């Protein structure tokens, strides 16, 4: 039965890679900045799932640690991007009101 998994898990990884490329197309196409932030979030999730599948496929324990660290970093990236963009927008708005 393990031979089925050896075929099935690479297929899952291939599907996730195709989905990552679709997300990139969406990020290029997206008319607003929020679309791009959403795509960054989704690509992070897909990469975490690929690393988790590789953990079981290769039988390496430490790859799960990498997936956990990647989850934290992608969460941090979204937090920083949104905070910075809200700050920049508010500053611009203040300048518009003053002038």
């Amino acid at each position, binding site marked *: *039965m393990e031979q089925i998994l050896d075929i099935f898990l690479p297929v899952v990884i291939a599907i996730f890679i195709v989905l990552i490329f679709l997300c990139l197309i969406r990020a290029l196409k997206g008319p607003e900045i929020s*679309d791009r932030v959403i795509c960054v979030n989704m690509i992070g999730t897909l990469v975490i799932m690929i690393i988790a599948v590789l953990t*079981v496929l290769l039988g390496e*324990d430490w790859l799960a640690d990498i997936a956990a660290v990647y989850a934290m970093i992608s969460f941090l990236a979204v937090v920083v991007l949104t905070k910075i963009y809200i700050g920049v927008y508010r500053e611009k708005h203040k300048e518009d009101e003053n002038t």
Partner: protein
Amino acid sequence: MSPARVIIAIILISVGVFFSIVSVLGTFRFKFVLNRMHSAAMGDTLALLFVLLGLTVISGLSFTSLKLAVIIIFFWIASPVSSHLISNMIATVDRKKVLDMCELIEADNTTKENKKEQEKELK
């Protein structure tokens, strides 16, 4: 590894793959930004849960499955927070568009303003 475990794992992982495909297609199909964010958040939580559950079924009672469970718990806390931040950003940056989409709110506000004006005129 018993065949039942492999079959359960394959079913769980394919459900997760289905949810991630749906969430990526949803970002293409929906027309409004908040709807797109909703479908992306669904992919973040449900797809990750099912894929990692399938992988824990494969790896059994071991240290790897403990780490995968930690990832699930962390992501179920972090993903709603990040989607809340993104929606907060959308609401501050294009407030007009959000209000235009929420026609009910706008209609409600205009009726209230009309009522206030009518009351002023009566006074």
